[in-house]
């Protein structure tokens, strides 16, 4: 059994929206955890990085604009979150596209995030 992990929650969000509600569920989980003052880390992995695309206009399809919700994360004291660097490049997300709290991480850094969290919730 691993003893390196601390007690925080790592939320791994791997699906784009709006096709599935998983993206929304991941974000709500992270925000609710933060709202209750619990340590939480968010990792956008694979196609999950597509949630960060700017200029979303989802009003006509009746789902939330996830990028706007993501932009509210500093108000939940979630100042920083991690973004799969390879996927961001693959999908053509540039530094200007990404919110200021986004920190690009390679595979090694992603493995460290897994190591450092006792609880991992994959969405």
């Amino acid at each position, binding site marked *: 059994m691993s003893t390196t992990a601390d007690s925080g929650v790592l939320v791994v969000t791997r699906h784009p929206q709006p096709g599935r509600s998983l993206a929304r569920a991941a974000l709500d989980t992270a925000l609710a955890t933060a709202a209750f003052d619990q340590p939480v880390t968010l990792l956008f992995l694979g196609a999950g990085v597509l949630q960060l695309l700017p200029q979303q206009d989802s009003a006509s399809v009746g789902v939330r604009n996830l990028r706007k919700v993501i932009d509210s994360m500093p108000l939940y004291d979630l100042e920083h979150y991690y973004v799969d660097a390879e996927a961001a490049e693959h999908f053509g997300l540039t530094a200007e596209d990404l919110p200021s709290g986004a920190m690009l991480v390679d595979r090694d850094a992603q493995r460290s995030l897994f190591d450092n969290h006792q609880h991992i919730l*994959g969405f």
Partner: protein
Amino acid sequence: MLHTLSCAPGHPAVKDCIALLRANDALLLLGDGVYIALQHSEDWLALQQSGASLHVLDADARAAGVRQRLAACFTVVDDDGFVSLTEQHAQQMAWY
């Protein structure tokens, strides 16, 4: 840590899971994920290279008809074996 993978071969999560697997990890294939263990698919080659211990859930392998065609690097586990894996690993990541 324990990874459970229940996506069919070709799903993008399979690639991400393989990329993050490490030698002291365990992987359990469930549901559609059992096809990855097919001897002839060669999808398991990358899994084997990770050095992680590789497992397939018996009931799902039987249901999919792959039980007799598993690559040799996989250990078949039943539900009790699944529970044991969760006991041996404090952390778990579900890929689905």
